[in-house]
Structure formats: structure tokens, C-alpha cells
């Protein structure tokens, strides 16, 4: 796969698939990098990330906003990226799982997830971690029950729930909650 992380991307300019009129130029700010894409207006933000930017860390589990696997952070707020269109997020800071670690230094939630075995197959994990960060940003999680409740939009079929909660609790308890991302 071509390296698209560090340069502007213009995948579609030459091999226009539908008529030029239907493709909209979209400028996305993902994990601190600027990208210009040409997208159908109905391309979901999730598909733009996965199919057009190659950022496949954000997962598709249902495409209907029912599972939370596609959770990302928009200006620090967690959303289901499958339920919204890419064209709506021009210039807004978007953070995906790929943007949480600082180089080789894992984000505290990522470290805690590994330590507490907060995943098995790993497919819901990026969404769980982004959702957890979004929940921490919201600032309403005061107890284990709160975390269980506020994380209930993120399904895990392996049912690693208790370990996910332990990982989040540890990040809260050790006060390593990073600044809102």
C-alpha cells in the first residue's frame, strides 16, 4: 500500500469513478495531519478513513451505529463514524486510534488495555479505547457502575467487558488521564 500518512492524498482525481460533479473535495484533519480527498457526498466518515485514507484501525462492525466499533473522537467528543458523512467534518480535528500513541509511547489507555487483557480478538478494541477517552473527556464517570453504563454503546462479543472496565479504572485512579484529545 502506498504511503499515505505523510502527504496529501488525492486518490480519485485521475480515475474518476462517477462524474466529476458528484465528487466533492473534502479536507480532513486526522490525527494532526491534513488530507484532501475527493469523495462522493454520501461517503461515510468511517469509509473515508478506512477505504480512502487507509486508516483501518477504526473498525466496521455493523455500519448502523449499533456496535460502537467505529468510535472516533471529533474535537474530543466520541461519535460513531459510520453514522455520519465525511463531508461534514472539513477542518475539524479528528482523532482515531492511530493518533493516540505518541510515537512508540502508548497512550495510558492502550497500556492499561494490554495489562488487563481488555480484549481478545481485538476488533472492538480501537472503538473501546476511543470511546473510553471520550467518556473521560465527558467527566461523568465516577464509579465502576458509571463506566459500565457509559461504555455500553461499545459491544464486545468476546465479552472482555470486566477487563475493559478495570483498565479504564486504573487510568482514572492513577490520574494519568491525558489531556482531552
Amino acid at each position, binding site marked *: *500500500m502506498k504511503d499515505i500518512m505523510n502527504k496529501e492524498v488525492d486518490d480519485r482525481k485521475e*480515475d474518476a*469513478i*462517477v*462524474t466529476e460533479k458528484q465528487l466533492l473535495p473534502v479536507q480532513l484533519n486526522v490525527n494532526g495531519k491534513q488530507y484532501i480527498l475527493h469523495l*462522493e457526498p*454520501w*461517503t461515510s466518515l468511517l*469509509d473515508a478513513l*478506512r*477505504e480512502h485514507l*487507509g*486508516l*483501518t*484501525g*477504526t*473498525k*466496521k*462492525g*455493523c*455500519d*448502523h451505529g*449499533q*456496535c460502537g*466499533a467505529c468510535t472516533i473522537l471529533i474535537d474530543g467528543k466520541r461519535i460513531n463514524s459510520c453514522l455520519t458523512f465525511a463531508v461534514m467534518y472539513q477542518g475539524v480535528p479528528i482523532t*482515531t*486510534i*492511530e493518533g*493516540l*500513541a505518541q510515537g512508540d509511547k*502508548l497512550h495510558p489507555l*492502550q497500556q492499561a488495555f*494490554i*495489562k488487563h*487483557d481488555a*480484549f*481478545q*480478538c*481485538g*476488533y*472492538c*478494541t*480501537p472503538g473501546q*479505547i476511543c470511546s473510553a477517552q471520550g467518556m473521560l473527556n465527558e467527566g461523568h464517570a465516577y464509579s465502576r457502575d458509571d463506566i*459500565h*453504563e457509559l*461504555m*455500553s454503546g*461499545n*459491544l*464486545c*462479543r*468476546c*465479552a*472482555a*467487558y*470486566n*477487563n*475493559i*472496565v478495570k483498565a479504564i479504572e486504573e487510568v482514572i485512579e492513577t490520574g494519568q488521564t491525558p489531556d482531552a484529545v
Partner: protein
Amino acid sequence: MTTIAADISQASYIGQPISRVDGVAKVTGTARYAGEYTAPGLLHGLVISSPVAKGRILSIQSEEARAVNGIIKIYSHENVKDLPWFDLSYKDMNLLPGSPFRPFYSNEIQFSQQPVALVIAESLELARYAATLVRIEYETAPFETDLENNLENAFTPKRGKTGYKKPKNRGNAKKQFTKADVKIEAEYMHGAEHHNPMELFSSTVVYGKDGSLTVYDKTQGVLNSQSYIARVFDIKHKKVRVLSPFVGGAFGSGLRPQYQLFMACLAALDLQLPVRVVLTRQQMFSFGHRPATWQKLKLAASNDGRLEAIEHTAISETSRFENYTENIVNWSGRLYSCDHVKLDYRLVPLDVNSPLDMRAPGAATGVLALECAMDELAYKLNIDPLVLRLKNYTEKDPESGKPFSSKNLMDCYKQGAEHFGWEKRIYSPRSMKQGKQLVGWGMSSGMWDAMMVPARAQAKITADGKLVVTSATSDIGTGTYTIMTQIAAETLGLPLEDVSFELGDSKFVFAPFEGGSATAASVGTAVLFACKKIREKLLSLAKKLEQSPLANVQDEEIVFVNGRICHQDDIECSLSIREVMDRTGTKYIQEKNSDLRAMFKQLGYARNTHSAIFVEVKIDEDLGLISVTRVVAAIAAGNILNPKTASSQIMGGVMWGISMALHEDSFMDHQYGRFINHDYAEYHIPVHADTPDIEVIFVQEKDTVVNPLGIKGVGEIGIIGTAAAVANAIYHATGKRIRDFPITPDKLL
């Protein structure tokens, strides 16, 4: 001396709670799943599914769809020719008796949501749009999808799929039942369930210039997919490479090649271009499922609680074209001491897709009914449900008469009860209220097979002291990567970071699909033997070196620690592996396991895992809302390679059991012959808020028979019995026996 001992304990990885070696890849989003590989010019496929359950396709009008700019081709039975007609071409390692489903083979519709067409386009959006423009006309035929209405049509299968064991009767249960002191009789029913792994079923197929295929598939067995493609499309095996390094959950759904694999390969071969086909969540309700099953249990006992007769009948659905079989009733002849057992397993063919193994197939179903019935019997006898189990404990397998290779169910009962606080339980139902909450405590036993299947591993150590071990096995979230790395590192005394285990590639040595909790034992033993062979070679090289300090050391006194070959009592008397390789000019040593001796020794023994599950529920008396608040799962599963990943397996299994008891139900609308709750909003699985406190206990169980490391496997045992323990707790809380699963609030009101 102390130094060596400390070093040895440091290099001891088996049994340690090591964090997953693939953890970083999974938490950073770099772990790549089947639908996440790409290639220049990748095309996207979208499958169109039949809205009717039975009939035939009269016509397909696709002109309008084909006219869309960017649509490459639309496939259906009308234009897909030259598919093999022979059943064997479509068989997979599951080997169901019958005639496997063949996509696009004819215009016949055999089940609702059957794939009928494939739209290939330059983008996913276009494929999705064009699919809406395809007009398909159907002629419908009468169909039958209701198991309960067709129980009289049940037949006894003459043979079954891979792993099927014909139930065995003993004694004369019927006669014994008529003269017994105490007896109960009850019927249990649960509907179909779907696996629903988080990852959508996907295949990305890259067509090579030489006509070869590189296939990224969501599967539990790369060799199963490879062999299927080779036979269906008549290509040489070596021209098909299937990879599956990460699998986003499977739970049995990846044991058969699913139709997106067929679709992606069909289009890639025809167009000679790279193609990806991803199914929708809704379409994942179109393939195999845990079959709807009706069961009847009759138990008879003496007044003091000894089982005198067990009769267990199970009738499950299957498709019209294959006989899917499970070992449902068999467990009733094996879990307790009882001389008179009558087992009856039958199938009803319906107009549905063939069922498919789903976590603990057979046992999840059969043990649910048996263990609910045991609870009913306990209350009929007026004795504690745990005491009833203890009274009927068996030290040998009652079915075969063979001893168990190991069985420490007794400690499961003891430790589980103690940790749960079972002795504080008040016997009578509805006696443990907390305000408006009815509190119920229930328990169950569980049993699964400790299987060993033929598997191979290849290990290669290079001059830099790094070890790479490979096998065509799978890690569906079970922890295969991690435990195999632990076994290899410990066997050769290498630091974990110098060892890598690779899997999910059809070019690796043979391993069967990952299923039945057999992988840790089977592949783990293969890894052990392959690494032991390297160890022998290294030692022999080390001893032959000029002035080798190890020349006169007995083999039994040698240890491999921290990359060194040492005398166990003298760290000075050692050589590093790198030095040995270097001084002998050895670039690498590569070995495969070939020792299958362990498999013959086992034949004289019954080999099983066991469990005791204790559950607390709290129920809102007015609304019937049920919460599982506490679970203790005590597991006897031999040697636990990694308590961290193994606990996760058990916790996951326990949640599946709770889900079976309270949530999961693929709801068949018999008017349309279609599962109507076919998405995550309507098909309920537990969420964070449904999760109770779960304590997992692994009791000590030393087993020298199953395999040299004493591994029994933990993937299934967590679910088995859990649903019964929940149902029994609900009875204890409410005094109501609900025998129709899942137990939803309406059934309690």
C-alpha cells in the same frame, strides 16, 4: 547456584500471566483483519440476498445497474457457468453429510437471505447503490421453518459430521423410571442463535500475474479455505495462498468457508483483478447458526438422591440439504454416575441454511437441559442442588468405563461453593429478598472434551539466537500467538522477545481449523516437540565444540536459560546459543515435530474438562427485570498455560452462557421463513452494563496423559452450564421454572 535458580524461574513462561504478544498491534489499530488489505485498483463486491425462503428465481434484470458508471460486472446463476456439480468439490473440513450449499449454482432458493447476485464496482458506495437497481423476480414455494410444529417429522441421523458421536444407551432406563421413588420430567426449548463476531465476514483476493490467488480471509482455518477454493475453482493448491493473521472473533462461524470467500474468488479469477467482498451484519444471519432445539429430560432417583435413570431426548433443526449434527444428549450419559441411561437424538430438516458449530456446540445445549433438570430433581427430593451433584459424582467415565486422564470437578464444587458463599444460601425459593429485589442463587456443572488433533509446527533458530515458530493455525482472540510463544521460549530458554510465533498462513505446516478447544493442546504439543528437537541439536553441537565446558555433562543436568546452555548447578559451565551457532558455522537449525506418541497413550482414558458455575441473580419483582450480579466459575482444565488469557476465555464463555439464558434469540418469523431481528439492535448480546462480577478459579489438575504439558483447552468450558446456573438462580429467586430460552422479563410476569 542461586543465580541459576533465579534465572530458571525468570525464564519460566508456562503458567505465567504474560500479556498478549499481539497486544500492541491490537490497541494501536495496526492489527490488520481480512477486509483491511488492499491492492492497486481494488474492486468492491456487494452481495444481494434472497428475500424469500424457498422457491426459484424467475428473472434478474440488471441492465439499469450495469449502466451505472463504475459498475464492473454483476454475477448470478445466469452468467456463472462451469461450477463443479460434484458435492465433494464443495465439502470442507466439517464434513457434513449431504450436499453443501453451492452459491450461484442454479435458480433454486433454499433459505431466506441466500446470496443470489454479486455486484462488483469500483467503490463500495457504487456497489451498494447499483445493488438497489437490480430487479429480481421470484416464484415462491411453500416452506417450513418451525421446529416445534414439526417434531413428529424428526429422524435419527445415521451418521454425522466431523466429531459426531452416536449416543450410547445403557441399562434399562424405561423400566427403572417406572419403579423409581422420585422422578421429574421436563421439556426445554431454545431458538436459533447466531455467532455474530464483531468483524464482518470479509475476503480480499489479490489476483497474481501467474493466475495465483493471495486471499485474506476471515476464517478459523486457512487450510480449510485454501482447499475449498482449490476444489471449487479447480486451481492447484500451491496457486492459492490464504492468510488470516488476525480474526475479529469467530466462535465457530469461521469453521466453514463462508460465501464471501466464494464470491471474492469468483470475481477475482474472472476479472483477473483484486476484489474484496464484505458481508453486512444482516447477511451474517444468513449462514450457519446454533440450531433451535427442543429437549425432554426424565430423571429418576432414590429417596436419598442417587440417580437411577436418565432419559434425554433432543430434537434439533437442520437444513434440507445437509445433516448438521451435534453431541447434545451424550453429556447426560457422562456427567453423573447412573446405570440406566437412554439417549435419543434426532433431526428435523427445515427450509433454513445448515446450522453450524457455535461455541461449545452440543454441550451448551444439552448440559443446559440436563443441569436445569438436575435442579428440578433436587427440589423434588428436597435436597441442596450441590449436594445432589456430589451424591452422583463419578470418578470414571460412566459411558466407556474408562478412567479419566484427570478429573478434579470435586475441587471445582468445593472451591466454587466456598468463594461464592453457597453455604449461606437459604434453600427455599423466594426466601432471599433484598427490598423489592428477589435474590436467587443457582449452580450447575459443566463438561467438555479435552481433544488432541493432529497438528504440526516448524521451528527455526538463526545464528543471532532468534527463534521463529510457524504453524497454519489460527488466533481468533483465544491467545494462540501468546501461549505458543511462551511454550517455545521456555523450551529453548530464550527471552520472550527473541521468539516469534506466526500463524494464519496456508504456506505454513499443517494445523486443523481452530475449534473445539483443541488448539492449545494440539498445536502447543507440536511447538514443544519441534523446539525440543532444536534443543537436542543445539546440545549436540555444544558438546562437540573443542574444549566444550559441557562435553562431560549429562543431558539431564542441562538447562537452557537466557539464551545459554548451562549445567543446572553451575552457571560458569555454560555456552551461549549464539556462540554455539557461531563457532560451529551453523546459520540456522530448522525442525518440525513428528512425535505423535502422546495420541496413542490417550486411548485408554476419557479426557475431559469440567466446571462448576455459581450464579447470583437479582430480579425486580414488579417488572421482571433480571440482572446477573455475581458469578463464580471454577474450572478444571489441566495445566493453564497463561492464567491471564485463559481467564479471559472463561469470562467470555460465562458471558455467552448468561447471554444464552437471558438475551440471545434469532427470532424466526415463520410467515416469511426469515430471521427478522437480524442486526445488533434487535439481536441482543450482553453489553458492559449487563456484566456481573465474574470470578474465575482454575483448580489444580495435573494430567500426564492428555499431552506432555497437560493442556486441556479452555475455549468452550466457560459457557457450558452457565445458562443452566442462571435459570436455576431465577427459579430460586422467583419459584418459577422457565424452560423456554432466553428467559425474558415477559416470561416471569
